C-alpha cells in the first residue's frame, strides 16, 4: 500500500531508512560470523539439576584469596596459618606467589581447580 509521508515526518523517515540500512549491514556481518563459528550442535547439553542451587544464601560457601581473612575464617591465628601454608604450598606443587582461594570448609582452589583441604595440613 502506497502512502504519503507528512512533511514533518520526512526527517524521521530518513533516519528510519538509515537505521534500516545499518541494521541490514549488521545482519550481513552477523551472517558472516556463522560461517566461522563453532556449530552449537557439537556442544553437550546442560543437565538441569534443580537441587544444585536450591540452598539459602547463608548456605553458600564464603571464600577469600586474602591469607589474613582466610586465617580468621578457618579459625587459625596468623602465625599458625602461615606455618601451615608454608608446608601446604610445596606439598601441592604451588610456588610462593601462587594466589589460591580458600573456602570456609577449608577447601583450597588454584586457577579454579581443587587443590586440597587446608585443615589436612594442620598438625
Amino acid at each position: 500500500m502506497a502512502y504519503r509521508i507528512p512533511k514533518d515526518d520526512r526527517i524521521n523517515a530518513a533516519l528510519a531508512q538509515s537505521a534500516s540500512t545499518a541494521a541490514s549491514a549488521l545482519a550481513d556481518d552477523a551472517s558472516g560470523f556463522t560461517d566461522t563459528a563453532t556449530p552449537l550442535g557439537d556442544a553437550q547439553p546442560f543437565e538441569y539439576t534443580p537441587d544444585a542451587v536450591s540452598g539459602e544464601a547463608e548456605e553458600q560457601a564464603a571464600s577469600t584469596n586474602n591469607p589474613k581473612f582466610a586465617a580468621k575464617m578457618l579459625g587459625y591465628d596468623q602465625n599458625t596459618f602461615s606455618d601451615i601454608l608454608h608446608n601446604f604450598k610445596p606439598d601441592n606443587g604451588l610456588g610462593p606467589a601462587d594466589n589460591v582461594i580458600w573456602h570456609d570448609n577449608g577447601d583450597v582452589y588454584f586457577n579454579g581447580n581443587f587443590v586440597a583441604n587446608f585443615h589436612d595440613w594442620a598438625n
Partner: protein
Amino acid sequence: MSEHQLAHATFHVMGDSVTPAFWTDYFGIKPDTAIIRGEQFTTPSGRPSRAPGRVGLWGVGSKSFIRSDQLEPHLRYLIERLDLSRPGLRELLEREGVKIRFWCYWFNETGDRVPDVPDDIRAMMESLGGTIEIDEYR
C-alpha cells in the same frame, strides 16, 4: 625470641621422578615430607590426602632442631646434616632428573626484615643446580 619462629628452612628434592625411599636411603635421614607423584600420601594432620600427589617431593626441615629467627643457622644445619658437599651429588641429581632447593620460611610482619642467605650457601646451591626460595609472610 618468641615461640613462633620467624625463620626456618626445608631442604627439598623435587621432581616427577622422585622416589622418596631412594633419597631416604641416600641421605640416611627419615624425611618430614615424602610424596610420590600420582599416589595418595599422608598429610601433616595424619589424614590421607584427598587427591593423589601432584609432585614428587622429599623434604627435611630445620624447624624442630634450630631456634633462630635468621635463616643462616637453619641453612647451615641442613647442609651439615645432609652433607650436601658430598661428591657426586650434582651428577646423581641430574641422573635422577630431580632438582633440589632450600624452601625458606620468612615471617616479616614489620616489613623491615631482610632474608640472610650467605654468599657461600648461594654458591653451593648454584653448583648443585639448586635454588633458594624465600616464602615470605607479612
